């Protein structure tokens, strides 16, 4: 069996072959979409939309509307379209369709996260879509047991504490940044590629200070060498300082929110994957999520 990896966005995760990669993301926690492409023609697409707590979703209606939309598009392309719907077990509908491509999928309502999720694996007519679908669709999960949300993009696999939602993200070739926010607390996960090239003529400390100079400007901070299971790293601890930062904190207090004054973070080089990882938490005094977040990050 080939090597496999996780892809996860907004708490929805799927296990796919390692050579597959995330090619599109959109939306937010309530409604969104992601797409994972294989090297061939197979494509995994997952779409979710939230429903109000306690509301009943018409799953059959939603699935019929989705298939009707595909039928209309196929008609425009003058392609034939066939579809089937089956009820697998309580609350899960399985479907398949065939046109100029073919697909197998599932649609279900999750009572825990109040989302209707539709996951579909499609491919060209010559591909074994059914076999791949049975292997991959069964791995799609929409929430974790402990409330921590899994985010897995391009080999950055992390879990984020409950209550933190994605504020911004940057998915660039060689650099990934995910910024989460919970009230005034922020959690920043970063991953740089090509560590051996980036750190060729410089130390990790100098390189990081150069990279993070702008983000660290509001803080008075200290950097100390640290070791993570044999990986070289740095520990960053700081506190907001300066009149402007105190004014910002006063504004937060006026809005009846505790200001996030403290900064804690870790930066380390993963020699095995040739990457530099950074986890930073800008938090209120009693928020201590950093160490547990760090434990739940997989760098290799």
């Amino acid at each position, binding site marked *: 069996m080939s090597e496999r990896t996780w892809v996860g966005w907004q708490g929805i995760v799927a296990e796919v072959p390692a*050579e597959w*990669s*995330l*090619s599109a993301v959109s939306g937010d926690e309530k409604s969104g979409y992601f797409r994972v*492409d294989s*090297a061939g023609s197979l494509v995994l697409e997952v779409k979710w939309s939230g429903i109000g707590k306690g509301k009943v979703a018409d799953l059959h209606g939603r699935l019929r509307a989705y298939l009707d939309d595909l039928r209309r598009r196929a008609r425009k392309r003058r392609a034939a379209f066939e579809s089937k719907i089956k009820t697998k077990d309580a609350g899960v509908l399985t479907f398949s369709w065939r046109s100029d491509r073919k697909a197998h999928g599932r649609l279900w309502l999750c009572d825990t996260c109040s989302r209707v999720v539709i996951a579909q694996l499609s491919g060209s007519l010559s591909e074994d879509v059914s076999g791949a679908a049975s292997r991959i669709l069964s791995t799609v999960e929409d929430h974790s047991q402990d409330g921590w949300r899994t985010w897995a993009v*391009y*080999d950055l696999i992390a879990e984020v504490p409950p209550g933190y939602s994605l504020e911004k993200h940057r998915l660039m*070739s*060689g650099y990934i940044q995910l910024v989460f926010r919970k009230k005034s607390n922020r959690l920043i996960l970063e991953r740089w*590629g*090509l560590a*051996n*090239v980036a750190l*060729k003529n410089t130390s990790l400390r100098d390189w990081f200070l150069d990279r993070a100079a702008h983000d660290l400007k509001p803080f008075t901070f200290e950097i100390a060498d640290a070791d993570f299971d044999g990986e070289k790293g740095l520990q960053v601890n700081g506190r907001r300082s300066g009149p402007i930062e105190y004014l910002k904190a006063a504004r937060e207090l006026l809005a009846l929110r505790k200001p996030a004054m403290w900064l804690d973070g870790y930066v380390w080089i993963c020699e095995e*994957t*040739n*990457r530099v990882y950074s986890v930073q938490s800008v938090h209120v005094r009693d928020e201590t999520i950093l160490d547990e977040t760090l434990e739940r990050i997989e760098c290799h």
Partner: protein
Amino acid sequence: MSAVYNTVSQYLPFLRKKPNLTRDQALRARPTRNPVLEWERVEGGDVRLRIPRRKDAIARALCRMFRAPDYKEIVLDEVGSGIWELCDGGRSVDAIVAATCGKYKLTRRECETSVAAYLKMLGDRRLIGFQTGGRKKK
């Protein structure tokens, strides 16, 4: 007519026709270094390219007017130098992506995006060309 078009498009790049390739065709294309260029490995392992100026009448006149040197030099960075050396006309874009992925431990998607953008930039500057499979003669 095509000779006129080629001459005009040499000076007006926006008139140049771009070939429509599928992703598979693009991955199978074999980048080849422009034979007019001279290149060498400099200290530190980076590649330095020497690009001769055009020799047509307009270019010669402009060179004389602005006292431009006969060659333009470009030094590629470490990753760029590695990719440049792989552009030998024998390896496909796919093979170059695979080699770069392995060397720098990048994910396939990240590597493909970066290498494709880099090769496109080299191609746009006419530092490399792309050999495609060619059509079968009828």
